[in-house]
């Protein structure tokens, strides 16, 4: 049986380790009783301490499993002027300390131990670890807090009255010194917390803040190292966030499924070894217990214990970092095995620091989320305004024809756009495009695409060639950000009644004419822009009806959904066009009717994607093309116009 006593400083402490059997437990407790008696604890208090130690040690012996029976039980007493702390460390599977302890039924022969401990001590905590558990029992001392089992009167005073006064004086001095030391310790903790809080106000670097705070904690508790793990937002694992030494960083720990719960587990649910499951590492044990868990890497032969990276024999405790009921992470803090285990006061300070840290982490995360949300909103506004600027303020006027476009943006801005460019007196280029992506990047690419079409239409002789050139220019930038663009280019020469079109993965072009079948789809399959570096596009030539028209749109129209989740669909769109396109008629009228039809279909359902379409209809025989203000437009693309 190993014994050691320490009377340094203000308190006195003693510990005894004994083999796991009842007789040795009894004599171990007797020696601790003698120690307490020797440091001046009165007979009136001794019975309660002895009884609680015996009950705890008996439990430790009687509940030890096969491996635990070969390990010693450790019992410790620490006597301060104002309180006594008792600790018993067992190697049992552990149990969950009951929330309530009723007076045991008189019919029961056994099972009164926990009730006696709870009744006789002021404070009881059962800290469960992966290899061992510690029952900590505390009781205040002093005239205002007499022990319940104490006799009503103190033992008879010493024969010499002066000795009595001296003893009382020494008691008072010890009590005052103890209080002063505790006050000093607490004030140091508070000032460290205030200092770090002030620093956090100046920075949002959470990692640096946590390291600074926990370095202060190491200093305060005379600890050697710490490992702080946090649960990243939307994840269910503990990731090392800060450590006193980079070598302490280890792999992430997946959280058990039950870890996210907000209420404590039922008693017994956590004794992993009872269910035959492997004993969890100390950090996960603390998560499951929702309470501080002590560990001793030396007594845990399990090499999977991540805290063994702090040393083969290091001990300390893991404190779950909790914000109310929400688990934020874990804080492991330890010392070398040759040093004292953390006292109750130190464990309390560790808990206070971790609570403070949890509040700061949650606050900072909320602030970051708010900033992020503001940025997203701001970005959406920018994207909206870019996109609005893309839509032409006016469309070219074409003699005998009418041109109208519609663009409506969803809340999540996409990259739909349309454009119409007069190439000559009798040719016009119609463009509808859709950048696959959202927000500012999509709007930016739509801007670039629109500029490229305008610039390159002067040099390209065919719509397929124009698409190929645009793809060459955009491929590198689009593929770098995993985006692509679908587009439909249509050259209309109304003098020669020809329509030439090329598509890059876009919706089919619709030709409008007058007759038994006024609607015809012209599918022009092609690779979207930005998917392959070098694409040879194909183009299709069709005859413009007399009177004739064309209709271009983005997939937002056919993918529009109503409140029942039904798509508007290609067939419904074609039917609508068939029923409403009565040439000759003004395009603007059709545009307004179709926009109203799409609104009616959608009802109250939110708009999921942008919608853009462009309609060209013949109103009278064509003479010449004019721009939006009505002035004559010069040839923008002689090469292209000639090719038509």
């Amino acid at each position: 049986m190993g014994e050691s006593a320490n009377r340094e400083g203000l308190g006195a402490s003693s510990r005894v380790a004994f083999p796991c059997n009842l007789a040795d437990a009894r004599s171990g407790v007797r020696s601790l009783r003698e120690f307490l008696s020797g440091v001046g604890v009165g007979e009136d208090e001794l019975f309660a301490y002895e009884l609680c130690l015996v009950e705890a040690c008996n439990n430790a012996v009687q509940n030890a499993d096969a491996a635990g029976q070969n390990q010693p039980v450790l019992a410790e007493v620490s006597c301060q002027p104002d309180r006594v702390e008792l600790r018993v460390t067992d190697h049992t599977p552990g149990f969950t300390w009951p929330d309530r302890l009723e007076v045991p039924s008189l019919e029961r022969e056994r099972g009164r131990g926990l009730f006696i401990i709870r009744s006789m001590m002021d404070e009881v905590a059962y800290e469960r670890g992966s290899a061992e558990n510690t029952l900590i029992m505390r009781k205040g001392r002093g005239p205002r807090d007499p022990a319940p089992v104490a006799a009503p009167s103190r033992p008879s005073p010493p024969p010499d009255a002066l000795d009595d006064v001296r003893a009382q004086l020494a008691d008072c001095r010890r009590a005052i010194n103890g209080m002063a030391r505790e006050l000093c310790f607490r004030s140091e903790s508070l000032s460290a917390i205030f200092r770090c809080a002030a620093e956090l106000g100046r920075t949002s670097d959470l990692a640096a803040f946590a390291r600074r705070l926990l370095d202060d904690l190491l200093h305060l508790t005379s600890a050697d190292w710490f490992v702080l793990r946090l649960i990243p937002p939307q994840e269910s694992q503990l990731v090392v966030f800060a450590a006193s030494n980079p070598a302490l960083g280890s792999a992430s720990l997946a959280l058990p499924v039950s870890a996210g719960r907000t209420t404590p587990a039922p008693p017994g649910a956590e004794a992993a070894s009872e269910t035959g499951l492997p004993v969890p590492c100390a950090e996960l044990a603390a998560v499951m217990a929702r309470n501080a868990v002590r560990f001793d890497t030396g007594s845990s032969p399990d090499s999977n214990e991540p805290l063994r990276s702090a040393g083969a024999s290091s001990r300390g405790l893991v404190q779950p970092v909790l914000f109310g009921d929400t688990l934020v992470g874990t804080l492991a803090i330890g010392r070398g095995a040759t040093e004292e285990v953390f006292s109750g006061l130190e464990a309390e300070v560790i808990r206070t620091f971790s609570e403070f840290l949890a509040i700061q982490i949650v606050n900072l995360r909320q602030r970051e989320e708010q900033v992020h949300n503001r940025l997203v909103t701001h970005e959406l506004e920018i994207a909206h305004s870019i996109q609005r600027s893309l839509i032409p303020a006016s469309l070219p006027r074409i003699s005998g024809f009418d041109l109208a476009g519609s663009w409506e943006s969803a809340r999540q801005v996409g990259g739909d756009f349309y454009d119409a460019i007069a190439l000559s007196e009798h040719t016009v280029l119609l463009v509808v495009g859709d950048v696959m992506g959202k927000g500012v990047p999509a709007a930016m690419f739509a801007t670039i695409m629109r500029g490229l079409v305008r610039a390159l239409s002067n040099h390209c002789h065919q719509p397929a060639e124009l698409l190929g050139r645009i793809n060459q220019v955009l491929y590198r930038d689009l593929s770098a950000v995993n985006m692509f663009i679908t587009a439909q280019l249509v050259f209309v020469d109304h003098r020669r009644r020809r329509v030439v079109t090329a598509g890059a993965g876009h919706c089919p072009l619709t030709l409008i004419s007058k007759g038994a079948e006024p609607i015809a789809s012209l599918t022009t399959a092609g690779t979207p822009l930005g998917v392959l570096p070098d694409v040879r596009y194909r183009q299709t030539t069709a005859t413009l009806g007399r009177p004739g028209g064309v209709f271009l749109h983005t997939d937002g129209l056919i993918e529009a959904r109503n409140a029942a989740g039904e798509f508007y669909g290609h067939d419904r769109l074609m039917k609508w066009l068939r029923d409403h396109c009565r040439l000759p008629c003004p395009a603007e009228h059709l545009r307004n009717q179709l926009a109203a039809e799409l609104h009616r279909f959608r009802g109250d359902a939110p708009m999921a994607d942008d919608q853009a379409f462009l309609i060209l209809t013949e109103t009278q025989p064509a003479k010449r093309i004019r721009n939006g203000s009505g002035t004559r437009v010069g040839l923008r693309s002689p090469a292209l116009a000639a090719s038509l």
Partner: protein
Amino acid sequence: MKIQNDGQKLCVSEIPELSAVNSDQFRDDVQAAMPSSLNVIEIDLSQTRFVDSCGLGALFALYKSAGHNGAVALRLLNPTPPIQQLFELTQMHQLFEIVRR
């Protein structure tokens, strides 16, 4: 521990403690000594310095076996104040007749 049997009364005394270490033995010894014509068991606790929950359990076992033998009174003599308070805390003072002489 001393056990005296006068045929109707069993007197148990000189019990230094009743703990997990000796309570089973105590219970078995007293039960073995119970005469068939027993009226009362007196357990003198005046020299007992310590009782734990196992000791309480042994006293309870005697109370039960005495009761099964037919309305035998179990009398505890002169427990020390801490032990008296332990009986009260666990409400076991309701089972036994506690006598001070």
